[in-house]
């Protein structure tokens, strides 16, 4: 591989996370030890990426305010990630 992955940083809530451009957000967060991506709107229990295929809907987060799937949305430099808050 001529040029390897480019390291970037982004923000999760108030934390600075190191990741690589183009990798799924959930992967970068997981290496940073962040597994909980949100809470159930029904019982407030902790939830994270489960299916990694866009089925379970439990990995949803907000990237710069817009709802996205952490299991597939790619990391880019300086993005700001917040939970997809349900009620």
């Amino acid at each position, binding site marked *: 591989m001529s040029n390897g992955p480019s390291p970037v940083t982004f923000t999760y809530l108030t934390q600075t996370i190191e990741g690589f451009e183009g990798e799924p957000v959930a992967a970068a967060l997981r290496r940073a030890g962040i597994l909980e991506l949100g809470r159930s*709107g*029904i019982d407030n229990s902790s939830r994270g990426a489960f299916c990694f295929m866009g089925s379970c809907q439990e990995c949803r987060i907000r990237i710069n305010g817009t*709802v996205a799937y952490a299991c597939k949305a790619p990391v880019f430099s300086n993005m700001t990630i917040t939970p997809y*808050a*349900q*009620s």
Partner: protein
Amino acid sequence: MTVALHEKPAVYDAVIVGAGVMGATTALFLARAGLNVAMIDRQDMFRAASGVNAGTLTLHMTRAQLIPHAIRGREMWLNSAEWLGEDVGALATPGLSMAFTEAEEDLLRQRARVRQEMGAPIEIVSPERAISIEPGINPGLRAAAYCALDGHIPTYRVGGAYARALKQAGVTLIENAAVETIASSGGQGYEIRLANRNQAVHAHRVVLSTGAWLEKMLGWFGHDIPIRCLINQLVVTETLSPVMNSVLSIANGLLSLKQFANGSVLIGGGWQGEGNIRDGGTRVIPENLQGNVRLAQHVVPQLNTAQILRVWLGLESETPDAMPLIGPLTHDDNAFVVGCVHSGFTSGPYMGRLLAERILGADPDLTAFDPYRFSSSPATGSQP
């Protein structure tokens, strides 16, 4: 009550055809009065209008003439533990109907006046007052009609509650069996034939409560009443933090908006999809989805953070004069109908109880609902 009959009688005292809120309530009160009752549905019970409706208990959208009935029905829902045996979670809230243009304000005032006359405690309030009642609404409104008697019910809890109550009352439930013919069996009541079953069901009396499917069956009893089938659209969002407390609508009645206890917001109002009584709802019309949701977002701007979870279509029935059909279909008082009630979920328990009372010999005033109004010979009060 412990009259549960475990042996199926050869001839039921009454067979209810159509297991929605109208038929099931009629069945329940007949069985509690000691009759042997069976209830038949072409699919599982409470899967048509009574299982998919918006659960608004509102006087803003009910036909003005039905307001007294809606008030009684609403009370029954709020006290469901008393007569149904379970609290189904109905919630009393205020209701606000809003006007955003001059024309809408005129309409709002005119409609509020008629409804007030029919007994709905509706008053016109200023935008400031409306906002103090419901802070989340669009401050651009011109006026609102406020009604203290409004509310909603989580529709999904109703079917199971009826199933348990009916079982306890001893009603025999026959599901997934469409009624194909009803023939009078020589003075011995009726023979009811079902799809996919060899065995016919026999009954002294029948009650038709098949909602959007009534037209053909009414014809079997000599009533040619065209039943219009509305294909109502509903939209529900994912749960979100509280954005409203009351039931919201607009002057022309084409929006119903509320947030349930779990945080999800239900958007309805009678926008139409495509469908028919054979296939059910077949297609959400994109423009109507967009229009309905835009209207909701206009009324409660904070909905812009919501996610649309599901859209569905439900079939509602309407007579040519948009008034219900409740009462006898034959002069010998052995066949009855209950259905086509506007905002019928609200008044359903009351309407079903009224018909049960009529069948059991009481004489409630059903004149306005008489099916014979569409033909020449009135039946009300007639005896064989």
